[in-house]
């Protein structure tokens, strides 16, 4: 048997008397010339699995049981000296963050040459020639041979890293979220590159990802991981047509899509069990909509539901029509009865009330470029270059663009967190430009912002109650007692327990923190809420919860949302209108159906084409 075989891998981390088991009994195989996707949400153990294959587990973690064979050679039995040759040679790995995977003080060519010297023993002119060949293979040019990492863009860095990993002519390439840090258009290029390299060289590719669409585009077979175990293992076509594990079905059901506009997204209640849990039954039982008595008592076996399709679920082979039909209903993404409240609005955009909340006219933000000893201004960087927008109460306008296009700067300039260079912003009919001091402060109650990173947006040294009260104390004329009552009401509104007020941010998960951030913004009763990529740091199941919450809040309070994102399915699901931004300008604006189905500008088309999940894997 060629390729990589993983059998019964179990990783343990002993921590002060307890034992955490982030990976428990994982088996799969990656054939030569095959791409396998390891799919799962954060904390499911997929990265740990990859590190264990490389024998690069972090300090304290150890491999308890299991075998890994690469072309019949037992990797866990090799002495470390022999493993060094395998690592980066026959088995190579690329990481998520191209920025930190390259040494900033060495040229990329130098780093590739280092790998060539280590694995092929190439020196001098031969190494030079091979470096150029590898650079060209990954779509860089001969001219990049003198480039340092900082001179390259994110996508080029990831290409350079791939070239480095190809230097050892690996039999298997492990790619751990290789495109998560990249823009959609760049992601599409890197994925295409990986796919063609894998075909050309006949290597195995183990792709670790959380993105269902990326897995669908890339993989031949997919392993779905949950709480340290593989719960489903099937060929891609089989998995995407008939997902059999309730968790996989849920993952599909929580994805926002154009077709699901106005419907409530299916939600996945609860949290992934912590890695020190002791299980008496199925690991997913607590959150499973189809769970029955046996699920809590008996650990399900990993059984073959159909040829080549393995599922860790009691319902998979029992063949009971009850279970099967119950599952299928969830899988089809139909709105469930419980979600009836928003079905009324289904299909048609929520009606805007007509009152214009935000009016942006020709807004510009220029940053001066200073050079020389006396820091003279030699030019300016036009981050936002003449943007006009308008937004009505109860309406959602999505602002779509790639990193560096100026969308976050625009958001900050609207709120006057950055002083705009020119143009005007009016919130609820009043221009912000002339406001100062007390008048501006009062105006701030009408416009609020929710940030992307739920970890950086809450002060780690303040209790949740104080965080929520801060804005009220600054902007609302409330005494202490009503303020505290309002904190309780807010926590309730965003679905957090009332005792949260006395706790610190680190005790909450990413999704809960984002709820807190939303509650903080709502505390001052704004009319306009700017959402700066509020779900891009979250898992899909949590994203669904937050999107549902945002939709409910909009309905209840008639909020106007300016929703900044790079994620097109979210736009399709939530927004009524879309503005596409590029290099500081809005290149196209219109109703969401029109933009997403019949885009006029070429950049919009490029964005849509680059989004994963709809191009067949056989296309180049």
């Amino acid at each position: 048997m060629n390729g990589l075989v993983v059998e019964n891998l179990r990783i343990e981390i002993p921590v002060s008397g307890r034992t955490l088991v982030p990976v428990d009994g994982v088996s799969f195989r990656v054939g030569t010339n095959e791409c396998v996707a390891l799919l799962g949400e954060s904390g499911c153990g997929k990265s740990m699995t990859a590190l264990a294959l490389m024998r690069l587990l972090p300090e304290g973690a150890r491999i308890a049981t299991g075998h890994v064979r690469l072309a019949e050679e037992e990797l866990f039995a090799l002495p470390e000296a022999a493993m060094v040759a395998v690592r980066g040679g026959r088995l190579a790995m690329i990481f998520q963050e191209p920025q930190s995977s390259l040494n900033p003080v060495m040229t990329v060519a130098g780093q590739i040459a280092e790998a060539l010297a280590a694995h092929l023993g190439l020196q001098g002119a031969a190494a030079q020639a091979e470096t150029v060949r590898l650079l060209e293979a990954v779509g860089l040019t001969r001219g990049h041979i003198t480039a340092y990492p900082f001179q390259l863009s994110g996508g080029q860095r990831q290409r350079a890293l791939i070239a480095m990993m190809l230097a050892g002519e690996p039999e298997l390439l492990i790619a751990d979220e290789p495109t998560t840090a990249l823009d959609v258009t760049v992601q599409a290029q890197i994925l295409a590159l990986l796919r063609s390299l894998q075909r050309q060289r006949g290597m195995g590719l183990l792709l670790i990802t959380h993105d269902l669409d990326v897995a669908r585009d890339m993989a031949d077979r997919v392993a779905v991981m949950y709480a340290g175990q593989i719960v489903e293992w099937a060929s891609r076509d089989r998995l995407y047509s008939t997902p059999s594990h309730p968790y996989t079905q849920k993952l599909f059901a929580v994805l926002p899509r154009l077709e699901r506009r106005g419907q409530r997204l299916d939600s996945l209640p609860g949290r992934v069990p912590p890695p020190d849990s002791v299980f008496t039954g199925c690991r997913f039982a607590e959150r499973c909509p189809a769970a029955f008595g046996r699920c809590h008592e008996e650990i399900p076996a990993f059984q073959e539901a159909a040829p080549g399709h393995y599922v860790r679920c009691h319902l998979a082979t029992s063949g009971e029509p009850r279970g099967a039909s119950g599952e299928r209903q969830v899988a089809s993404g139909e709105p469930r009865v419980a979600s009836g409240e928003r079905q009324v609005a289904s299909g048609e955009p929520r009606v805007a009330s007509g009152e214009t909340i935000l009016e942006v006219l020709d807004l510009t933000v220029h940053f001066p470029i200073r050079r020389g000893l006396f820091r003279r201004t030699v030019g300016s960087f036009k981050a936002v270059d003449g943007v006009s927008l308008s937004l009505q109460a109860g309406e959602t306008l999505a602002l779509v663009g790639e990193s560096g296009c100026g969308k976050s700067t625009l958001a900050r300039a609207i709120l006057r967190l950055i002083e705009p260079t020119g143009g005007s912003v009016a919130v609820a009919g009043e221009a912000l430009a002339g406001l100062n001091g007390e008048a501006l402060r009062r105006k701030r109650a009408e416009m609020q912002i929710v940030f992307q990173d739920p970890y950086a947006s809450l002060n780690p040294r303040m209790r949740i109650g104080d965080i929520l009260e801060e804005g009220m104390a600054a902007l609302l004329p409330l005494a202490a007692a009503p303020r505290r009552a309002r904190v309780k009401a807010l926590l309730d509104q965003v679905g957090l327990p009332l005792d949260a007020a006395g706790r610190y941010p680190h005790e909450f998960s990413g999704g809960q923190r984002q709820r807190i951030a939303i509650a903080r913004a709502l505390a001052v009763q704004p009319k306009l809420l700017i959402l700066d990529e509020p779900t891009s740091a979250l898992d899909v199941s949590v994203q669904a919860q937050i999107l549902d919450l945002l939709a409910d809040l909009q309905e209840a309070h008639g909020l106007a949302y300016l929703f900044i994102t790079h994620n097109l399915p979210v736009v399709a699901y939530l927004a009524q209108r879309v503005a596409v931004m590029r290099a500081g300008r809005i290149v196209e604006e219109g109703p969401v159906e029109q933009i997403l189905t019949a885009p006029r500008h070429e950049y919009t088309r490029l964005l849509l084409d680059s989004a994963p999940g709809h191009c067949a894997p056989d296309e180049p």
Partner: protein
Amino acid sequence: MMKPLLLWSDSLILLLLAALAALLWLARHNEALRGHWRQVMRSRVGRVTALILSLYIGIGLLDSAHYVERLPAAPGQPAPFSGEVRSALDWLLTPIRVSVEKTYSAPLAERLYAKESVMGPDGVERRDYPRLLHPGAHWFGTDKVGQDVLYLSLKSIRTGLLIGSLTTLVMLPFALGLGISAGYFGGRVDDIIQYLYTTLNSIPGVLLIAAAVLVVQVQIEAHAELFNTAAARSDVRLLALCGILGVTGWTGLARLLRAESLKLRELEFVLAARAFGVGHGRILLRHLLPNVMHLVLITVVLDFSGLVLAEAVLSYVGVGVDPGMISFGNMINGARLELAREPVVWWQLAASFLFMFVLVLAANLFADQVRVALDPKSRGRA
């Protein structure tokens, strides 16, 4: 008969105590602070180090209750006061204070460390080590003029604590205010503050301190009537030293805080606060300061030992505390010659080392416990 005497540093200490008491009184119902305190006291390290620190502070406070004794009156005249200023600690330590030997003696020795001509019982004069006046009474030996080294070490504690805490108090407002503002506001403010500390850093510290101490000395001479006792004079010199060490010593911490604030101000919780129209002062106080406190705590405690040592270095150059004042610096400075003589006199250095080591170690460990207690992430962790 005695009369209490308030030196300048004593009044400062009283003021400090009063402020501390007022703060504690105000914070007595603050559940969060009490929780932090309880957590520090829950760990054994926290309890032991707190005990050691309070012992040191207790000794320092006892040594700050100064008085002068009334001398026997000459007939027909009001009794004059002694020129020698004593403290409650002196009074407590009277047995070892007055048990003065002739010169060096090793710890717990029976005999002097130097040979002398002594008259034997047979009436013949010989060169021998004479018996001590108080054999076995000096745990840490005696110094060159026969003073008990344990007494000297205990007396040094007040000087060390004063230099450490007063300098820190002088330095902290500069470091916190300027460092955080430079990082948070950036631009012009940052330029000016950076200019300030770069300039200050580029002047050799010892030179600056020497100049300042000399100026203070001239001032003392010019106002001799204000400082009529030797104790008052060395006291003012000590305060001046604390002041000048503080004014020159804030740059390192300020640079650290500037860098940290530069990073913090870009974080989104600061932006969120600005979106609420929260004022700059409040943002600095509520969002930046608590998030740099761990740096402040670590730096201050590490600097504390550095300051006590700086006093030794400055005493060596001759611009430190008054040579007559008992301090770790002067003890270490004296040990320089003692280590050069043969046979070596090591106990003065050893004693000052031991006392400083225990103080600094306890302060470090205690600060570590406080830092852990203040960090919300460590809460509930065993």
